[in-house]
C-alpha cells in the first residue's frame, strides 16, 4: 500500500545522487516526494507546507549547489530542519520551579493515555527525584477512571486522593491542592477526563480547573498514531489552556509518528516525554533527533542500542564483538546471535530501528519471515557437531543429510543456512573495514552483500 517514508526518500535521493549540482527543478522534484512521504507519515498538511518551504529555501542556497554530493546534502538539510522543527537537539526537562505542592495538569482526548502517563510520571518523580507525589483523578466521566488512577498510584508507590463520590472536577482539584498543602506533598498530578476539543462545556470545565490550581505544567497527552487531526486538537487545547508541554504516547508502536512534528509546530510547546509501553516505568525523555530519524525512516539507532542493551547478555555480546573483530565468526556465534534476536522482540520491529533498511524490511515482511524461521535455523545449528559449527566448510552431502534429519528440516534448508552464514561472515569483514563511524554514516545498506534484498534471508 503505502511505501514507507524511508523507501520514498531513498528513492528520491537515489535519483539526486550521481548528478552534479542541484537545479531548482531537482529540488522541486525531491520536495514533491518529501511532501508525499511526510503526508503518509501523518504529518499534517499545513505543517508539511511549512516544512518543505524551509527545506527549499535552504536547499536552493549555496550549501547544496556548491556541494560535491548533493543527494546527501539534501538528506542532511531535511534531517536538520526536522530536528529544528521538533525542538532542536536534546530533551526539554519538566518545569519544577514552583513552591510545593507543584501542580501538574494532564489534558487530552479520550484514550490518549493520560491516566497511564500520570501514573508513570508519579513513579518517575518518586524514583528519580525522591519527591512525594499525590495523584488525583478529576475524571468523573469515564466509568472506573478514578479507580484506575488509584490502582496505578499503588503500582507507582505514591499516594492518591481518596475518591469522594459526587464531587465535580473543580471540587476535586481544590481538594487535591488542599490535601497537597496540608499533608506536605511536593507534587500534585491532576488527571482530567478525556475531552474533545470541540466540546465547549468540557473545555470550559478544564479552564476552570486550570484557573483554580495554576499548574506549573499543563501537559497535553497525545497518541503518536494520530492523523491529520493532530493540528486541530493541539491548536484547540493550546488556545484554550496554554499547553506547556506535550507527551507523546504509544511510541512503541510502528507508526512513523508524524503527529509529533504537527503538534510541536502548531503549539510551539516542546514535546517533553514519550510513553513507550504499558509498564509503569515506560516513560522516556523526548529526543528530537531520534524521532526525526524515525519520521524520516533513518532509523532509531540509539533506541535500538538501548533496547539491545536491555535484553542482550553483555558478556555474550562482547565475546561476539571480539570474535567479529578477528573475523572468526562461526556458526556457534551465529546461533547465539539468533537466540539474542528472538529475545529482543519481533524481527520487523527491530529492523524498523535500523537505518537504510526500509526497503528490505518490506521484502522481509513479504517473505513472511518470523521467529519460526529463526527457531528452525537454531535447530539446524543445534544438530551439528561442535566441530562442524567451528568449521562449516567440512559439511558436505552426507553431513547435510544427517543434520537435516536431526533438525527435522531439509537439505535445502541446511544449504540456505550455510549460504546465509557465508553472507554474514562476509558482512562481518565489511563491517570491520567500515568501522563504527562508517556504519552510522552509510547505514546497513553498506553492509549488505549483493542481492541481499532477496526474500527469505534474515540478514
Amino acid at each position, binding site marked *: 500500500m503505502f511505501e514507507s517514508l524511508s523507501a520514498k526518500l531513498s528513492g528520491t535521493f537515489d535519483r539526486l545522487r550521481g548528478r552534479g549540482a542541484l537545479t531548482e527543478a531537482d529540488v522541486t522534484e525531491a520536495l514533491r516526494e518529501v511532501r508525499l512521504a511526510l503526508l503518509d507519515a501523518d504529518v499534517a498538511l499545513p505543517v508539511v507546507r511549512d516544512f518543505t518551504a524551509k527545506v527549499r529555501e535552504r536547499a536552493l542556497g549555496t550549501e547544496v549547489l556548491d556541494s560535491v554530493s548533493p543527494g546527501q546534502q539534501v538528506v542532511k538539510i531535511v534531517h536538520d530542519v526536522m530536528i529544528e522543527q521538533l525542538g532542536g537537539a536534546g530533551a526539554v526537562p519538566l518545569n519544577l520551579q514552583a513552591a510545593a505542592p507543584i501542580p501538574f495538569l494532564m489534558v487530552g482526548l479520550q484514550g490518549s493515555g493520560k491516566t497511564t502517563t500520570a501514573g508513570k510520571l508519579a513513579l518517575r518523580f518518586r524514583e528519580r527525584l525522591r519527591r512525594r507525589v499525590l495523584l488525583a483523578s478529576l475524571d468523573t466521566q469515564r466509568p472506573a477512571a478514578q479507580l484506575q488512577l488509584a490502582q496505578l498510584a499503588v503500582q507507582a508507590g505514591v499516594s492518591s486522593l481518596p475518591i469522594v463520590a459526587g464531587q465535580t472536577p473543580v471540587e476535586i482539584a481544590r481538594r487535591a491542592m488542599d490535601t497537597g498543602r496540608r499533608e506536605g506533598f511536593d507534587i500534585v498530578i491532576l488527571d482530567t477526563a478525556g475531552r474533545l476539543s470541540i466540546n465547549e462545556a468540557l473545555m470550559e470545565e478544564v479552564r476552570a480547573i486550570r484557573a483554580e490550581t495554576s499548574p506549573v505544567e499543563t501537559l497535553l497527552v497525545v497518541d503518536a498514531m494520530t492523523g491529520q487531526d493532530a493540528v486541530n*486538537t493541539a491548536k484547540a487545547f493550546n488556545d484554550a489552556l496554554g499547553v506547556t508541554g506535550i507527551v507523546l504516547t504509544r511510541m512503541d508502536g510502528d507508526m512513523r509518528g508524524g503527529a509529533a512534528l504537527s503538534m510541536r509546530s502548531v503549539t510551539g510547546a516542546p514535546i517533553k516525554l514519550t510513553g513507550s509501553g504499558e509498564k509503569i516505568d515506560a516513560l522516556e525523555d523526548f529526543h528530537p533527533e531520534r524521532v526525526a530519524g524515525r519520521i524520516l525512516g533513518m532509523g532509531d539507532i540509539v533506541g535500538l542500542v538501548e533496547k539491545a542493551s536491555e535484553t542482550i547478555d553483555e558478556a555474550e555480546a562482547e565475546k561476539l564483538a571480539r570474535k567479529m573483530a578477528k573475523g572468526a565468526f562461526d556458526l556457534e556465534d551465529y546461533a547465539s546471535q539468533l537466540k539474542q534476536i528472538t529475545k529482543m522482540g519481533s524481527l520487523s520491529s527491530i529492523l524498523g530501528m535500523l537505518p537504510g533498511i526500509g526497503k528490505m524490511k518490506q521484502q522481509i515482511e513479504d517473505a513472511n519471515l518470523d521467529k519460526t524461521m529463526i527457531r528452525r535455523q537454531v535447530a539446524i545449528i543445534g544438530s551439528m557437531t561442535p566441530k562442524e559449527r567451528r568449521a562449516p566448510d567440512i559439511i558436505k552431502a552426507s553431513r547435510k543429510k544427517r543434520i537435516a534429519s536431526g533438525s527435522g528440516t531439509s537439505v535445502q534448508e541446511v544449504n540456505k543456512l550455510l549460504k546465509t552464514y557465508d553472507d554474514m561472515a562476509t558482512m562481518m569483514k565489511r563491517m570491520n573495514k567500515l568501522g563504527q563511524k562508517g556504519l552510522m554514516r552509510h547505514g546497513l545498506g553498506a553492509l549488505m552483500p549483493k542481492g541481499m534484498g532477496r526474500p527469505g534471508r534474515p540478514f
Partner: protein
Amino acid sequence: MALGGFFGRLKQGLSRSTQKFSDGLTTVFKKRRLDDAALHELEELLISADLGTAVAARVIDNFRRTRFGAEVTDEEIRTQLSTEIAKILDPVAQPLVIDRTLKPHVVLVVGVNGNGKTTTIGKLAQTYVESGLRPMMVAADTFRAAAVEQLQIWGERTRAPVIAGPPGTDAAGLAFDALARARTEAADVLLIDTAGRLHNKSVLMEELRKIIRVMQKQDPAVPHSVLLVLDATTGQNAIQQVRVFKEMVAVTGLVVTKLDGSARGGIVVALAEEFGLPVHAVGVGEQAGDLRPFNALDYARGLVGADGGTPAAGD
C-alpha cells in the same frame, strides 16, 4: 429509538467533525472552474481528512476525467464528491447481525489501547438489551488497571451480566469459562472485552490468538465475529493495524469510534479500499445510545459537509 434524534446526533457528530473541511471546500469551490489548481486544492482537502495520499489521488483522478474544466458550484462538488466516496464505502456498510440460534453468538472485541473497546462493548450490550436479546459480557482485559470495574459499571447500566475474575486472571481461561456459562444459560450474545495491544507486539498478539484457541476447544466455530475497534483520529497507521489484526485473529468487521470529535475519519475510506472489511457501526459519544449503524452515503456526505446528510427517507 427516535429517528430524528438518531440522525440528528449522527449528523451533529459528523458535521462538527467536518466543519473545517467544509469551510475549506466552500472557499475553494465557490463558482470556480475545475482546473488543475482547483483539483490540487481539493486533493489536499481530502488528504487533510485522513484519506491518505493514494486514495485522495485516485478520487481526484476520477474527477479529472469526468469534470475537468467544468464550471462548478460548491454544492455540486460536495454532492459529486460524496457520491464518489460513498461508492467506495457502500460495499462495507454492513450491520453486525446476531445469529439468535447460536446461543451464544460470540463476539471478540480487539484493538490497540485507548480506542474505545470497553465503551463500545457497553454500547453494544445496551443495543442488544433494547432489542430483546440477552447479552453477556466478559472482562478479559485483565491487564489494565480498573478495566474490569469499568466494564462492571456498564453491566450495572445495561443490566447485562459481566463475567470477571480476580486481577491478573488468565484471559483465555476466563473466556473459556465465560463461554461455558453463556452456553449453559443460553445467552444470545457473548461480548468479550480484551486488553488493548499494539499490533506490533508479537507476544501480546499471540495471547489474543490463545484466547481464540482455548475457546475453540469447546466450540470450533467461535468466535463468530471478531470486531476491531478503531479510533477515528488514527492516521495512516490504521492500515497496518487492520492488516496485522486481520492476519492474526481474522477480524470480521470494524467499529469506528470518536467520530464526534474534530477527526474526520477519512481513513475509513482507505481501509474500505484496501481490505473491504465490513464497517458495522460508528461511535459518536460516550453515552450508551451513541453507537450508530454505519451508513455509507451519510458518512461520505458528512465527510465532505454536503447538505442532506439525513437519509431519513431511505433508511
